[in-house]
């Protein structure tokens, strides 16, 4: 299947939607995942291109989130979790025993379904990852980075007078953008988003979508979404999951306009 995708990616370069040259950010080969005896992912082969938005779609419980969490080792905390296969980030096996999970997570940021700012001020929310990952960073440098990320995520004008108020006082959409900013302060290469807009109103959702389209210039983005319109609006590539397998993957137009598999067509039609 990976060859199908690469072919798709190559074709994609010719379309007007994809303009700059890209490479592979993450490569997944023969990935199987179990929770206890229950196999959650079966033989996943997938290449995630650099500086593009890849969307995972599919019904609930189909393994989208599991795969997303495999990309920064977040499943390791779950009891009974087992994995085989290869996940490479920029050519390095992330499940290699010698690689440190902290280093991986510096390169792969994650935003969760519910906005989860720490119970502290906006400023400290962004300062905490900076301090943890760069010992001895100066106050001035930290402040510069924090303000830059707030501007990048479009939050700065909304919160500039309230930087030292608790992050929990802000709206859901602002909190979620804060979480994106928090993921970005340590300059990851990849940004994972697990249904980031599922609890947000349409205005906040559209703000986040345009933010992601801007961020695409600098980061490889993977987004899990139940919102098919959202996938169609922002994704360059789409993977359709069903029962722990990738049924179909390719550039967005192909999947939405000319699905090759019957299951994909049925899902897009809303048949399940």
């Amino acid at each position, binding site marked *: 299947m990976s060859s199908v995708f690469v072919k798709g990616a190559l074709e994609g370069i010719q379309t007007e939607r994809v303009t700059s040259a890209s490479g592979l950010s993450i490569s997944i080969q023969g990935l199987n995942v179990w929770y206890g005896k229950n196999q959650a992912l079966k033989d996943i082969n997938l290449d995630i291109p650099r500086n593009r938005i890849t969307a995972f779609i599919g019904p609930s419980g189909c393994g989208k989130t599991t795969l997303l969490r495999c990309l920064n080792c977040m499943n390791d*905390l779950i*009891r009974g979790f087992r994995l085989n296969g290869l996940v490479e980030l920029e050519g390095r096996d992330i499940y290699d025993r010698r690689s440190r999970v902290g280093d991986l997570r510096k390169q792969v940021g*994650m935003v969760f379904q519910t906005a*989860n700012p*720490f119970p502290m001020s906006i400023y400290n929310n962004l300062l905490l990852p900076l301090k943890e990952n760069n010992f001895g960073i100066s106050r001035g440098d930290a402040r510069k980075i924090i303000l830059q990320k707030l501007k990048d995520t479009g939050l700065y004008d909304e919160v500039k007078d309230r930087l030292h108020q608790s992050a*929990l006082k802000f709206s859901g959409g602002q909190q979620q953008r804060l979480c994106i900013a928090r993921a970005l302060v340590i300059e990851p290469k990849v940004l994972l988003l697990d249904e980031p807009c599922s609890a947000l109103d349409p205005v906040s959702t559209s703000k986040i979508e345009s933010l992601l389209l801007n961020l695409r210039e600098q980061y490889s983005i993977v987004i899990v979404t139940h919102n098919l319109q959202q996938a169609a609006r922002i994704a360059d590539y789409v993977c359709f999951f069903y029962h722990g397998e990738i049924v179909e993957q390719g550039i967005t137009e192909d999947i939405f306009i000319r699905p090759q598999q019957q299951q994909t067509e049925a899902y897009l039609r809303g048949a399940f």
Partner: protein
Amino acid sequence: MPDIRLIRDWCGLILSWLACSLTMAGCISIIIFLFIRGSAQMNPEFIFCAPIPSLNQDMSGGISTPIIGTILLTLIATVIAVPWAVGTAVYLSEYAGNRSGVRVFRLAIDVLSGVPTIVIAIFGLAIFSLPQMSFLSSVVEGVEGVNRAFGRSFLVAGATMAVMILPFVIRVCEEALYAVPLNYRESALAVGASRWQSISTVVLPAARNGIISGVILGMGRIIGDTAIVWLTLGGTLRMTGLQPWWQPNHWLSTLQNTGSTLTSYIYFASPAGEGNMPEKAFGAALVLIIIIIFLNIAVDLLGNMGNKIREN
């Protein structure tokens, strides 16, 4: 025809209201009783004078050293117990999971919480009477054939008290840690923090108020305990270290020697215990209950303050 369900509803309401009122009445009558009996003693002399051993109640001095003793003992035990309990709670809630070995560990903590304090006191006395432990109290001298530590001092009593409140404080800390949403931990890990970083910078601060409430309630139990004081702090009303005990350069000697707390003072002053000064005992009991009330108010205020901090 009366509606049976309505009557049942009323019965339930009235019974639970009665139970609640009875509790309130018990609590309030204890406090009122102590105020009536003890308030006559409330004067500066009673609070600020050291007790004087005397058969005459009017010449028996005040309760300054028992008050200081209570504070000292509570501080020592808290300093020992808090890092110990927080460490244990962090291990149990963050690292241990649900392995069978851990279940034995939890069971042991439950058992420890059911051990009567007098048993813990005997155990503490036995351990701290070992000659190797004499640096915590003093060496028994001048008794032929005896080579052991005295086993009674503020330090010994503090350590024993710490063991006594450990299970309670561990439980409260564990609850406070469990109450921290999982997504705080996940988001901390996801920004590249290590396990310990996520615990120390996000989880523990988020659980801080719960932990502090637990510690204050634990302090309440230390203040109220008598058996451990009686056995491991000794039966002396006054401070027995180098005199004057309050001089800063005598601090170690004071901690290594015996004294009294409000609870042991009550026991030794009350006719029900070993004394003949009921009025003094009621006075000390009133002071004790006022301290406990203030501690509980502190817990309440802390809870409110925590909510406000989160909202700001």
